Each structure stands twice: as C-alpha cells, then as structure tokens.
C-alpha cells in the first residue's frame, strides 16, 4: 500500500532558511516515497551533519542523524545487518565530498543497494558560509577571502570512476524531475548517487536559483547521451560554466554486495539465529 504524504509529516517544521534548496529535496523525497510500494517503516534515512542532514527529523520513518561526514559507513552497517531495509543517505557536499570523501568513494566500490542523496550547495551553510569542496575555483568566502585556489571536486566523475552503478544529478528547483530521479535511485539495484544542485540562499550569492536555472539541461532530452558509457558520463560531467547536465549520467547492472554474500541468502542477518561455536572451538584442540 502506498504511503500517504500526510503520514510522512512530522510534528516539527524544518529549520531551514526561507527559500532554502533543502525544501525542494525534502518535498521530492516524500513525493517519491508516496509513489513507491515500500512500507513506511522499511525506510531508514541516515544523515551526516549540516543543514540538509537534519532531514531525518522531518520524514516520519526511522532515521539516524550521525556525525559530520560519516553517514555512508553507518548506513552500510545498517544495510548489511538488515538488507530488507530501504536505506537513504542524505548529506551535504561538505559532508560527502569533503570530510567524508573517503567513505563516499569506498561506498561505491561496494555497491550496496541504497541511495545517497548529496545536497550540493557549494558552500558550508551551517557554519556560516565557508568555502566547500565543490565551490567554484576563485570562490570568495570568509574562509577564502582572496578566492579559493583549489579546483572543485567533481562528484559525478568520482562516482563514475569509483564504481557507482547509478550516477545522477538533480536540481532542487525542479521537484518533479528530482522526485523521478529519487524514485529511480531507490528502485535501482545497487549504489545510486544523486548529486542535487541546491541553492543556499543565505550564503552562496553566486550559485543562485537563477544561476542554475539558466544552465540546467536534462540529459534525457539529449538523445545522443548513452547512460551505459563511462566516457560519455565523464564528458557530460565536464560541462559546468555554460551548461549543467541534470538527469541520469550513468547506470550499470552489477550484482549488489548483499546479493553476493552467501550468508545473506537465507534472509537478513538480523533475523538469523546464533550458530553454535562449539565445533569451531573443537578444531583448536
């Protein structure tokens, strides 16, 4: 039975700034949940730390608000313990591409069946506007008053090369399109990475709604884009200043980690009983 939107609403209202891109992502996640046939209690939203990482509080299902940069390994533990759960990781660009980049990369090698949504606003919002790993080169903030000298992390290219089997980008200003990408990401068998362009209306005065709106193009409207080609995904990910591609960049069919573990074929680990260790101990004699 499909979930009703009302059932997902929490008692408190998000603490994001008026106009924050996180509202669009919030709406899209809930919309997607109402459009899929997954019981509400089967969702676990695991987040890091940051404005967008407060998401689990405003979606009525199980949630874990973890540490800065650490939702991916914790979510992997949840998934391995109970692979029947639908795990959605939510975190920002600083969380996933900065402090948690190592975990982000290794998560994709493993191909757990889960979705990772990165709310990418190219700025550190919760700590009042420092430069982030995805800030454009030359970006000025109070942590880089002379403009950052570092080239930005390209999450799409990292995801494709690290082994993600579903790599997409959405825009929080297009909730309908984003909803569809979240749905595809949840339904994809394997690790789905969804980078979401999300304006920070308070601190990022460069990458605004208007700035994005002028640039976003849907990849699915580009008939020549081949989602099975890593090379094409890379090419599409190179575009930024004049045109930014949203939609599905790359998809691959590869067995999930859970599917490859013989121990998990009889059901989730959490449901399995204790096996007597006696025979193993006897071999030490």
């Amino acid at each position, binding site marked *: 039975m499909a979930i009703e939107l009302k*059932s*997902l609403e*929490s*008692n*408190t209202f998000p603490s994001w700034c008026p106009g924050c891109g996180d509202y669009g992502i919030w709406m899209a996640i809930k919309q997607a949940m109402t459009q899929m046939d997954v*019981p*509400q*209690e*089967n969702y*676990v939203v*695991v987040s890091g*730390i940051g404005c967008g990482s*407060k998401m*689990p*509080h405003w979606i*009525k*299902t*199980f*949630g*874990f*608000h*973890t*540490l800065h940069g*650490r939702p991916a*390994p*914790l*979510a*992997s*533990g*949840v*998934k*391995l*313990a*109970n692979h*029947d*759960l639908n795990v959605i990781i939510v975190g920002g660009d600083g969380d996933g591409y900065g402090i948690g980049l*190592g*975990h982000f*990369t*290794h998560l994709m090698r493993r191909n757990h069946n889960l979705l990772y949504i990165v709310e990418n606003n190219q700025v550190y919002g919760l700590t009042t506007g420092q430069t982030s790993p995805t800030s454009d080169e030359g970006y000025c903030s109070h942590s880089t008053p002379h403009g950052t000298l570092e080239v930005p992390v390209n999450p799409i290219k990292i995801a494709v090369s690290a082994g993600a089997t579903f790599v997409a980008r959405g825009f929080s200003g297009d909730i309908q399109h984003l909803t569809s990408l979240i749905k595809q990401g949840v339904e994809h068998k394997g690790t789905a990475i969804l980078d979401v362009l999300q304006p920070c209306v308070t601190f990022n005065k460069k990458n605004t709604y208007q700035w994005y709106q002028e640039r976003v193009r849907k990849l699915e409207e580009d008939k020549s884009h081949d989602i099975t080609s890593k090379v094409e995904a890379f090419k599409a990910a190179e575009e930024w200043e004049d045109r930014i591609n949203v939609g599905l960049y790359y998809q691959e069919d590869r067995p999930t980690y859970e599917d490859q*573990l*013989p*121990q*998990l074929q*009889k059901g989730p*680990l*959490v449901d*399995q009983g*204790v*096996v007597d*260790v006696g025979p*193993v*101990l*006897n071999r*030490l*004699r």
Partner: protein
Amino acid sequence: MKEVVLEKSTQTRVLSNGNGHANTEISPEPQPEGTCDFNKRRCVTWMVGGEAGSGINSTGELFARCFTRGGLNVFAYLEYPSLIRGGHNSYHIRVSPAPLYSQIRTIDLLLCLNRETFDLHHDDVTQNGGIIFDPEDLEILEDEVKDGVSWFPVPFGKIVKENEGLDVMRNMVALGASLALLSYPLNYLHDLIKHQFEDKGEKVVDLNIKMAKAGYDYMNEHFDPSKFPHHAKPTEEPARMLLSGNQAFSYGAMAAGCKFFAAYPMTPASSTLSVFAKHDEELGIVVRQTEDELSAVLHTIGASYAGVRAMTATSGGGFALMNEALSMAGIAEVPLVLLEVQRPGPGTGMPTWTSQGDLQYVLNAGHDEFPKLIMAPGDVKEAYQMIQHAFNYAERYHIPVILVSDKYLSESLYSVDDFGEKTEIDRGPIAAETGKIDEDFPRYQVTDSGISPRTLPGMKTGRYVSNSYEHNEVGDLEETPEMRTAQHAKRLRKIEELKTELPPVNVYGPDEAVLSVVAWGSTKAPVLEAMRRLAKQGITVNLIHPTYLYPFPAEEVKSFLKKAKKTLLIEGNHNAQLGQLIRQETLLEIDEKFLQWDGRPFYPGEIVEKIKSLL
C-alpha cells in the same frame, strides 16, 4: 549499590589458571633453574628463532600444538619486528603437565635457524640445556657455548636435499629433531601435518611427514636423547585447545551471537579480522574490512542500531580515529562492543610489542561525558567469557563497552581445557510493536534507571531518530537547558545502575600476605607465576586484579588496600595509570611501583626479585 564483601571474594577467587575458581591450592612452581624433571610436574621450554619471514610463527605453533594434543599445558610467547622479511622472530614455548600462567626467561632447548638467534638468546639457555642448529648455516664455536650446555648440529638443509624435499621444509626437519631430543613421540606432529596440509594434496603431506621423520631419525641416530635431561611426555588427559587472546575474544564474541565484524587491519589487533573472516559463512557472520577505523566503528554502530550484535577491534592509533563515533554511540545510546589491543605508542610507536599505556586514554576517550564500561581480561579464558558479558551489558544499557587487551595477551598462545558454562544471551530492552508508524516513539524516555527501551528499524512501530545531537525523548533536536540537563543525567544514571551488578573483584592468593600486588590485564599472568615461585620460598603474596576498570570498584579495592601490609603496583606504562585511577577513585596511594614500558611483558623472575627487594 550492592555490598560486596572482599573477604568472600578472596575465598572464591583464587589461583585458577583460568580453569574455574575455588582452587585454594597454589600449583607447584614448575621451573626451577637447571634440573627439569618432567615426571615431577615440571616444565620444558623450547625456543625457535630465525629471520622474519622464515616461518617461525607456524613452526612455533605446530610445536606447541604437538603438546596440547598430548594433553599438556602450553604457554607460547612470540616476538617479532614490524617487517615482513629480515629482522628476528622468536617463539618461546613452555610445556608442562602442571598449569602454566606465563612465559619465563629461560630456555631448555634453543633451536637456532640463524646466528642472531644464538647471539640474542644463548645466555638464556639453562645450564644443562641444548642448542640445535644447522652447522652449514651458522658457525657456532664450542667456546661460545656456556658450560654444561650441549650442542646438537643437525644439517637441516642437507637432510632436506637427501630426502628430495623443498627448502621451505627445513623447519619440519628441525621440528622432528627437537621432538626427538625431548623424547616426545612424533605421531602428534604427523597428525598435525596431515591436517594442516590436506588441502595441498597427499604428496605435500607425505613429503612434510618425511622431513619431520628424517629430522627425528637424524637426532636419534647421531645423538642420545636419553642423556639429554629435558624431556616431555604426553599425559592421559584429553587434547587441550590452544589459542591466542585475539582468538579467544573472537570466538567468545561468536558464542555471544556477534554476527557482524568490521575492522581495519592494525597490529596487534589484526588477527581478529582474519579469525572472523575464516568462519563467516559457517557461522553466518558478515565481516567487513573497511577503508579506515572511522568507517569500521561506524559500520559496527550501524549494524548494532539495526539489531545485529556487532563489534570492531583495533589498536591505540585506530582507536584514536574511532573516538568521535564512540562519543556518538554514547549520546545516541547505541550498543557498541570495541576491542582495543594496546601496543606501545605514542604515534606509530612499536607496532609488534606490548604495552599497557592506553588505560587512561581509554578511560577518558570520547569528548564530553557519557556512560561506558571498560573491561580488561587477564587471560584467554577471561577474554572469552568477558566479551560475552560485554555484549549483554552493551545491549542492556545501550552503551559502548570497551575491552582492553594488549599484544602480550592478544598474540600469546594459551592452552585451555574448556571455557566452562555458556553465558546466557540477553538482548536488552526492545519495545513491543504497538501503535502506528507515524507516531513518534519515546526512544530517549527519561527513566529512573536511565535505560529506555529501543526499537529496531523495520519494526512496524517505534519510529524515532537516533541522534548524535542532543535531543528530546523522541530523538528530535532540542537544546533547552531542561532537556539537556535531563538527557545528560539520564545517560549517566545508567552507570550507577550498572555498578550494582558488576561481579566482585578478583583476588588471588591467601588472605594474609606480606605483600599485595595490584595489577590489571595481561600482567596477571607473570604475577601469578611469580606468586607460586615465592610461595615455594615461603613468601606469601596476593594479587588484586580488577577486570572491570570503569565503573571502578572503588569500595572493594579500597578495603583490600587498607588491609594490605605493603602494596606493589605492577603495570606496563611509565605513569602508573592504574595507580592514577586508584588514587582518583579511592584517594589511596600504592606504596611501591614496578613499572616497565619497554614493549616487553613482565617476566616472573623479575617480579620475584622486585618483591624480594621490598621485603
């Protein structure tokens, strides 16, 4: 708090060699210097040494297992440097029909696989001991050997060649020769080879057996083992288990139903990862080698939150990386079992050596205050049993439980006849499924005991947010002074509750003693060994060995120390860290200290000397 009468615990917890308690007899001291009569329940010591990478570990382990199979007790202590080839490895193996607590310094039979072994260890060979070596490998001049020590040149390389073996089988010849000299039957090695190499096919098995036999025969043909005063004899007793501390922790965890293990390799904790991985399919365990220790502990917390018993293991440096998540487990109230196997630091320190230098760090690990339980087993039997309790405590109180070990306990091999009664599994309070999924569940309800039942994701009801931030009863962010005060106090109240059910402190030896030793963790082993030597000399010493270090059993320790005539603290660090803890908790200062931070375990002989010097 439960009143624990110390006198009572003294009566029930005495010298036990980990074989259960209530044994007031102190086992006879098995190793007087020089003569070593096996029939009089004494011991034989053997050491193999050689270049790192030359199979010292497997040779030592095979040798040790020949004796546990023969119903004998073994203690095996391994030393090796942090490199794969070159450097010097040694395995010191002690065998006796009597219980053994620790390694000793002396060697009855030294097997030198290179010159360095001779240089480093020939001084430790007992007066009528022996040295086996390959004269084609190393030159040992007769006048280099101590008076009374016999030397047995056995050309391992030549024997291998003559028997059409492979060069890697030299150690098998050496093992055969060693067993022959000790007049110990070859059949155990024979069976062990069969078992160890059966995957490699009959040919490999046969060839290895042939090498062992060739070494055995060579010794008997060229020398007269009956004249060698050191020998070993199988007993009628059943085969014993032989295992390391890390194996004991791992198997104990498996017995407790731990079904998820995540770790990043770090000496000397790494072997836990391979023990778990070895049995993953057989016992239905998921094992994950993570990208770093942060990931390892977070994987563990994730699995535990989802309802599976989970643990991680690391050493000091990796534990440092885990600290933030440890603190999170504290506030989010997720059960966590963590094994910290100490090695000398700071920084990278000395990876393959032992230390008790992390105690204060572990006690204080994680920012701000949160409840945690810290245990430090003293031997493999305690390791196996205590980790099972660790899971129960973690899940009943929703707290992190840290077991502290060290290289000495985790990598030495101990023989064990059996692990005793099984510990009941207690998964702690889990709320029933009542209500609706869109109703918030008071996961962090403020209760008198501080414990509030949890739900597991996927349950039809009981939705909440497990939270690293300060939170209200349903897990939502809340920073009001009232809620902060209530939640923080609720969490810390769990420790008060926990204190009331911890077992009494272990006290070994007689009630009346001229000196009382205070020690923790693996140092128990050489202290017990020293105690029985001293007992034989009429010097009565007892030992208080707290295995639950936090919450600290202050009242019991205080009453013990106040009664003691003279107290001596023995621990493997510079700052007397247990002493600091005792002072903090009891306001008492221990009279004397014997501290060592050289990376080596304490030796019973040194403890005996220290104690005598204080009387």
